[in-house]
């Protein structure tokens, strides 16, 4: 059977921060699965969802089947291409995978959405700030608020609540479900390296995708994070996957700050240029004010002879002596 040589598919995802390959849980899931299954993907880390082929991230651009956007569909596509991380699982383990993924989506994901997007302090200080700083102008004024309202809508519809303000009641219920879910995952994982033995599978990709941002991103207001940190085996599990499969990304994180002046700095901190820009703008403003003053005559420099100005009727040839005499008087 001849194997068709096709170009590797391209994956577009949100870029990462602080040791994480990506900040978005869905992107992390897809990246992790690709690494586990050994799929050769060309990864584009971008911060502008409008540049992706489907308009949202993550997105997989394939050579034959067009573009796919949900992580679920992307993983099915990779499986069809024979990159299957679940190949060695038994039938029962496959069933358990579906069940635990449902558990994650029903119990943990709503609490995560709440913690990152609805809780006011976290949203303003961390999430919105990150997206506003990294999405290019002018989308950074519009997209974070749109993502915020999507998240709010989703939570409201899924829980059937009309009142989902960042109040205590809804938060307590969501977090309680999430604590239970994390505890259950921890119990299921036990002391194993991965959920189904020594090799990672798609369930590991999903769990990692949800838990890694919670572990790594510093949220000011987060009991969820504290609960996660109390579950040692889950913390070790996430760090283990990061070290094993994403160590390039992890070292890129802090190192990236150093070559900032060399890169075209539209998205990064412009510290060296900031001073220069400030100086230039002050100079331009001063120049404009002075020019305006001269043009309208508020300030004028008289080029005419000072003697004519002071003593209008005297003859010019006696100017020098006269001035002395005059000054002497």
């Amino acid at each position, binding site marked *: 059977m001849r194997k068709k040589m096709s170009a590797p598919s391209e994956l577009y995802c949100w870029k990462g921060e602080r040791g994480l390959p990506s900040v978005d849980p869905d992107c992390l899931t897809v990246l992790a699965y690709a690494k586990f299954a050994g799929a050769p993907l060309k990864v584009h880390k971008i911060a502008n969802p409008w540049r992706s082929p489907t308009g949202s991230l993550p997105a997989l651009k394939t050579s034959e089947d067009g573009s796919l956007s949900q992580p679920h569909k992307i993983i099915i596509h990779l499986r069809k291409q024979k990159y299957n991380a679940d190949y060695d699982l038994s039938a029962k383990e496959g069933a*358990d995978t579906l069940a635990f993924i*449902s558990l994650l989506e029903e119990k943990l994901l709503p609490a995560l959405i709440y913690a990152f997007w609805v809780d006011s302090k976290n949203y303003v200080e961390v999430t919105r700030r990150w997206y506003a700083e990294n999405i290019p102008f002018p989308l950074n004024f519009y997209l974070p608020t749109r993502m915020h309202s999507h998240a709010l809508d989703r939570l409201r519809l899924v829980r059937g609540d009309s009142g989902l303000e960042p109040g205590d009641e809804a938060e307590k219920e969501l977090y309680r479900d999430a604590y239970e879910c994390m505890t259950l995952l921890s119990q299921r994982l036990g002391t194993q390296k991965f959920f189904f033995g020594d090799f990672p599978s798609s369930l590991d990709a999903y769990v990692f995708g949800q838990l890694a941002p919670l572990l790594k991103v510093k949220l000011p207001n987060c009991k969820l994070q504290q609960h996660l940190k109390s579950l040692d085996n889950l913390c070790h599990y996430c760090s283990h996957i990061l070290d094993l499969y994403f160590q390039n990304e992890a070292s890129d994180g802090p190192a990236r700050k150093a070559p900032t002046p060399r890169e075209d700095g539209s998205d990064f901190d412009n510290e060296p240029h900031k001073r220069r820009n400030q100086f230039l703008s002050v100079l331009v403003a001063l120049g404009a004010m002075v020019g305006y003053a001269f043009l309208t005559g508020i300030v004028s420099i008289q080029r005419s002879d000072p003697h004519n100005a002071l003593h209008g009727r005297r003859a010019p040839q006696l100017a020098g002596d006269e001035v002395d005499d005059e000054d002497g008087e």
Partner: protein
Amino acid sequence: MSLAAEAFVSQIAAAEPWPENAALYQPLKDDQILLSDHASSLAVQAYLRMCNLPVQVACRANAEYMSPSGKVPFIHIGNQVVSELGPIVQFIKAKGHSLSDGLGEVQKAEMKAYMELVNNMLLTAELYIQWCDENTAKEITRPRFSSPYTWPLNHVLAYQKQWEVRRKMKAIGWAGKTLDQVYEDVSQCCQALSQRLGTQPYFFNKQPTELDALVFGHLFTILTTQLTSDELGEKVKNYSNLLSFCRRIEQNYFEDHDKDSITSSTSRLSKGSSLM
């Protein structure tokens, strides 16, 4: 309910024994109740029978509005009202009856995960087929849902509910799915359940748990309900161990009481309300 109020309620609940006049409320059996609501209601009834707790089933046209969370079924015990299987299980546990106490930690985790699987895939698929498939919605769902009301309220309520369900589908990403993909998901879910069940009588060997009640509720309803096409039932029928599982629970827990209670109600859940 806030956590403090819940703790208080469960303390009170634990103090009282199970009353004689406990009632379970659901929409009207013959004309109004829909596939998804019937499945949830049957799951709760099965659970109560497994715990040996008697309950009267009361049908009301406005059951959905009476419920504290907006979802049916709900039970009325003494002076408390609890809705949906999850909270009902907790409530009954506070009274000292529980089916899952004997399970180990890992098994409890699996049980909860599989219950979420049923909620996430089967229930969502049922809602999708009922409300997002235009054929089914027009011929079965909307007429049934609005049958107790007069014009124009029936149209208003039916379309309002449909709009709400479609928004929810969009929010969770199911709006882009075709009917075939939904049937495929149902098939996968049944395959997972079938593999987990294997050759055991119940999911956790000898004793039934709330997971068995939930699975029974959904599968039995799917098998005995006539929709515009038989495909949903066919997907379940592919797995013989699930069929014998449903039969086993029906025989053990529903046949010794009034035999007609569930079989007659489910066979009438078809378009028009003619007996099939």
